[in-house]
């Protein structure tokens, strides 16, 4: 094994993660390799410096309110979903009724009726097209099962 192969053992040695056997193997290497011994010493200094850094703990009341905050956000997000679904349904229903009334209204000119129907047909085509494209890409996406 070259010194490069010992880098994993060096990290394990530094962090006390080695088995007794691995520890012995690494110490044997260290005794005959001043380069690795020097590198280990540098890492020890770095670890000592890094271990000294601790982060400011937020106040107790932040932790006491933490769950409430998460719960309220969960509840609110459910509220938004219900609200959005209801708004979409009502808009579709209202739109449908409005169009129905316009089509049935004899006083409305034929040109407006045809224009309105064309507008709806155009929107429907666009919607189906985008939906089909998305579905097609999703089925062909080789990375869809990759954990992100």
């Amino acid at each position: 094994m070259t010194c490069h192969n010992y880098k994993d053992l060096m990290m394990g040695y530094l962090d006390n993660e080695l088995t007794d056997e691995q520890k012995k193997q690494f110490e044997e290497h260290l005794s005959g390799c001043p380069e690795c011994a020097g590198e280990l010493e540098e890492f020890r200094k770095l670890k000592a410096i890094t271990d000294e850094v601790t982060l400011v703990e937020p106040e107790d009341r932040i932790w006491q309110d933490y769950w409430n905050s998460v719960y309220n956000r969960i509840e609110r997000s459910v509220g938004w979903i219900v609200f959005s679904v209801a708004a979409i349904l009502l808009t579709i229903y209202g739109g449908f009724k409005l169009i129905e009334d316009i089509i049935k209204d004899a006083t409305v000119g034929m040109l407006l009726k045809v224009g309105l129907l064309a507008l709806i047909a155009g929107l429907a085509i666009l919607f189906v097209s985008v939906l089909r494209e998305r579905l097609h890409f999703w089925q062909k996406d080789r990375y869809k099962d990759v954990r992100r």
Partner: protein
Amino acid sequence: MTSVCQEEITAMRRCRRGSPEAFEVFVNRYMKNAYFIALGLVGNREDAMDLSQEAFIRAYRNIKHLKPDRKFFPWFYQILKNLCISHLRKRRYRQTSSLDAENCPEPAATTDCFSPEVVAERNELKDKVWQAIGKLDNKHREVIILRHFQNMSYEQIAEALYCNKGTITSRLYYARKRLEELLGTGKGGCINDMP
């Protein structure tokens, strides 16, 4: 940290049935880990608090996708990490855009938000270490955070990152090498002389 206890199994069953109250078990158990990991990844207290809470909300919404035999924390960690990385990306984009608007040729560092004010019992050396950690790549920073600030074992880190222990030791090696470079703790480095 990652052992699946009966309390978690029961809570997970209740969450799957749509009880948000049952999710409190997970939040209370992992909120501090979540906050400090997010703080280590994004470097800013307010963002860390918001992202950690958002990660719990997303975890609750998607808990049905977590297989019953899988542990909660490694799965949750992936959600939190992805949120933090996405946040950093947006922050970098915003900084670059605002600089472009001012015709500034130098893009801002993503780690500008690694303010040393989050460090406890501050001194010059600790401030430098924290800012150097902020300059590491995401994959190197996360192993340093999990090892040094969360005191996680290699096995726990490997489990959280869905990789093997060899990858963790290798990343730690290169992360520490990079930290040495940034801090000048290597041979002849000036920080060696500091108390």
